């Protein structure tokens, strides 16, 4: 039974000698990313609190870092890196496409209802 693993992450920037070593390497990276998130979450630097595309800049950073973590969990812990291209695309694009669609619709609608509450004739003054 052949179980070849691609033993490099960051497009070959970080190479490993064995699969076990790669697992620990990915753990170090994920811990590092989580630490950044926690530190940013506690201190909330003033520079990042400006509005970017309808949300605080910091929130975009959090979402980006989350997707980075999700990528490494899927690619290296779930061995998506070693699956065939077809399986990878089937799983990833189905999810990505449908989730983006769902999130867009619901957030758009939520924002609209908020605008009705705050600018429309419906008031809640209690």
């Amino acid at each position, binding site marked *: *039974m052949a179980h070849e693993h691609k033993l490099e992450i960051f497009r070959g920037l970080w190479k490993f000698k064995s699969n076990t070593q790669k697992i620990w390497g990915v753990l170090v990276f994920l811990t590092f990313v989580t630490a950044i998130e926690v530190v940013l979450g506690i201190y909330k630097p003033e520079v990042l609190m400006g509005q970017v595309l309808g949300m605080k800049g910091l929130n975009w950073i959090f979402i980006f870092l*989350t997707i980075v973590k999700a990528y490494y969990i899927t690619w290296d*812990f779930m061995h998506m890196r070693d699956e065939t291209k077809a399986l990878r695309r089937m799983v990833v694009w189905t*999810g990505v496409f*449908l989730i983006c669609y769902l999130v867009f619709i*619901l957030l758009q609608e939520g*924002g609209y209802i908020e605008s009705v509450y705050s600018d429309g004739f419906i008031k809640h003054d*209690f």
Partner: protein
Amino acid sequence: MNTTVATTGTEGKTWGGGSQPLKASYGKMMMWFFIVSDALTFSAFLAAYGFSRFKFIDSWPIADEVFTHVPFFHGNYPMIYVAFMTFILIMSSVTMVLAVDAGHHMKQKAVTWYMFLTVIGGLIFVGSQAWEWNTFIKGEYGAVQTKGGNILQFGEYVDVDGEQKFKRVAVADFVKGGHGERTQHQSKNGIWYVSEGTLPEYTVEEVYNGLAAHENVLVRNQILNEEGEKTVLSREESLKQIKDNGTLVVHGANLKVNEYGSPLFADFFFFITGFHGFHVFSGVVINIIIFFNVILGTYEKRKNYEMVEKVGLYWHFVDLVWVFVFTFFYLV
């Protein structure tokens, strides 16, 4: 006897059957497809959370003020405990992937140990979540709910290093209760089909009297100001709000009331972390089953440990979901 057609002339060709274009076993592929559908379920929940949050974007509770506790420590430590939980879950993902790796090398002993550690990690996580729920349900300061279902909280300005900072004050610290003229309605001494839940510790009137007697205490409503902090009312406005609009004293959170703000926040918190916690729990159960199978040598006899790999996929997925729950409930 040879009546079936044995050859079709397509053997060895791409569409001749028997080829595995995805190079993955049936079980593994189905686990992937289950994960896709489960991911869609979770993202629907999180998107619904986003919907409600966008709807009340200017009055949503601030997570840093809600989840501030760490077991065995007093004080205000937002994020620390949940970061620990995240680390535990990632760590148990690591031991899981090490078990899969050991399985590839047919090392029964190593797989056993790594599965054991994975189960322990999962149990610590579920336990932490139970603790987090308990703290959230018990609540901390207490608040007054208005007629419209909004929350009024209490606090006072204190001098911290020459700077005026708003610090929360618990209802119990300034309200004198216990007139006790109001008895709980029970079905045995009233109309038999009507009963009443536990009564709140204080009546709104008692809170009003307490507020009137303590000059320094102010009311804070749900509306977020430009700095992203809750609006603090003036002394007159505080008294007026409690008198005119207060209907119920709430302490802690459940599916109906939430002392931290919108009840929707509590509803989604219980629902999403509960659903995730249920996944972790079932993952732990499945891991235990696999653990015993490994000990019994089931996969040694089978000469492959793919079952560990399939369960591993599920376990990593649970970790993956938590990464998102962590971001959208505690960070954003």
